């Protein structure tokens, strides 16, 4: 039986009306339980509230209704200890070099210098950043900067890693390789991972389970279990099951994406079998 690590129960998020906009029901109600050490991905149409879901779970946004727990404690308006977040946008600090960026959180936690050095060196080596330790973010590619952000999150040894489309700005080849690295991180740290992505292949390849969200207000309308072993990588792309999972995700998501665009779905030309 799955040991629950983080859980959302009846979570909704409504952005209140402003003088220029009416109220927006962005999310929910969402019920979701993440198992300890699980890799869970969320896919959904654009604007369905995927990022809102992540922000609420991280404690960066308050839910309008419902409750969120992490390690049995309720999350209320602040990011709890043990949670790390990697954003889609470049969040590296441009005024610090790579090593200083990675060490930033540890120095704030006032860990002994020797431990900071050891953890930072390990993270730099793990993410393939040794040769760029003294470079500034502006001197790196988008993929390398995202690695810096992942390394900065990893050194704090989070038990729950939340990733909001972290590879969204990268080319397909780099995405696949970064996906492999993410799987390696997940395996070695034993952390629970929630990945928000719009790439179905990425979700199908990386996850233990994939949650498909409806058009706004986003609800989880289907959860697909992939059945992959922990020891997996991007070579799964040539597995027949990978195609089946991706097709199934798309079948559910297509209707929701059309709804998101304000159009109704058309019947498939041929019934797909999973």
């Amino acid at each position, binding site marked *: 039986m799955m040991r629950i690590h983080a859980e959302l129960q009846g979570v909704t998020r409504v952005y209140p009306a402003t003088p220029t906009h009416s109220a927006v029901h962005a999310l929910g109600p969402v019920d979701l339980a993440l198992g300890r050490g699980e890799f869970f991905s969320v896919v959904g149409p654009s604007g369905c509230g995927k990022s809102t879901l992540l922000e609420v779970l991280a404690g*960066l946004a308050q839910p309008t209704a419902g409750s969120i727990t992490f390690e049995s404690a309720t999350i209320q308006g602040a*990011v709890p200890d043990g949670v790390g*977040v990697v954003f889609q*946008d470049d*969040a590296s*600090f441009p*005024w610090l070099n790579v090593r200083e960026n990675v060490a*930033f959180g540890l120095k704030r936690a006032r860990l002994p210098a020797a431990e900071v050095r050891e953890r930072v060196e390990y993270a730099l080596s793990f993410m393939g950043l040794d040769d760029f330790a003294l470079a500034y973010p*502006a001197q790196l590619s988008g993929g390398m900067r995202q690695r810096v952000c992942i390394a900065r999150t990893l050194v704090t040894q989070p038990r729950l890693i939340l990733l909001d489309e972290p590879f969204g700005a990268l080319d397909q080849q780099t995405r696949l390789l970064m996906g492999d690295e993410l799987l390696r991180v997940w395996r070695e740290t034993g952390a629970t991972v929630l990945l928000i992505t719009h790439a179905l292949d990425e979700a199908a390849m990386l996850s233990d389970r994939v949650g498909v969200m409806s058009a706004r207000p986003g609800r989880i309308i289907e959860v697909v279990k992939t059945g992959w072993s922990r020891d997996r990588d991007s070579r799964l792309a040539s597995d027949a099951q990978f195609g089946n999972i991706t097709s199934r995700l798309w079948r559910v998501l297509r209707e929701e994406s059309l709804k998101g665009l304000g159009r109704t779905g058309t019947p498939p030309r041929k019934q797909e079998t999973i």
Partner: protein
Amino acid sequence: MSRVTWVRLAVVAGALAALEAACRSGLISPHTLVPPSVMLATAAKLLQSGEITADLLRTLRNVLAAFVTAVAGGFFIGVVLHAAPPLRRVAYPFLASYYAIPVFALYPALIVVFGMGDLPIIVIGFLFAVVAMIINTLDGLDRIPRVLLKTARVMRMGPVATALRIKLPSAAPHLFTGTKLAVAYSFIGVIAAEFILSGAGLGYAISYAYNNFNTARMYALMLLVITLVIAVNLAFYTWEQRLLRRRNLR
């Protein structure tokens, strides 16, 4: 040195040589302009004799006072306006049209309020510089990427740590631009105010030489002022380039 620097130096040297030749040949009257070599020799003599040391120090002290108060005050006002959007909306038209106001026209009022000492001069320098700092502080704070502020929250940083460790370094390039402009505006404000308000300082010394038809002294002092301002700005420019190169913004 790069090729561009050589070309730049050649242009300046060429212009000075042409000016020297025009003055020496009588094409330009010595009552209008003295040759650059005479300006330089007179400036060196003035510095060596210590004749203008008191004026120079007084001007520098006034510029420093105007600059420091403008940077500190401008930064503070910028932070307050950024934190209070309704206040900012009220202040916006004043900030947008501020440099249309001829600050020097206020000098009689400033004398009435602050007396005849250095204070009205410093106030003019301050008034000239402060808004550049306010505008650049607002620009810098507006342009802090939201993702960095979210990162600060993920790292569970409080408001003070976020301000000092995230907002300040992130806004630094804009704050630097404001500081650089504040230096230039402080110099302009103080020296121009000394022309009309003061009995001492470099501005007054230039005005005195002009009124006494001492053309060589007047140009020598102008050369000194220009050299001083360029040197200070060059120091800031070099510092800024180093900062921006690190962030790949230059």
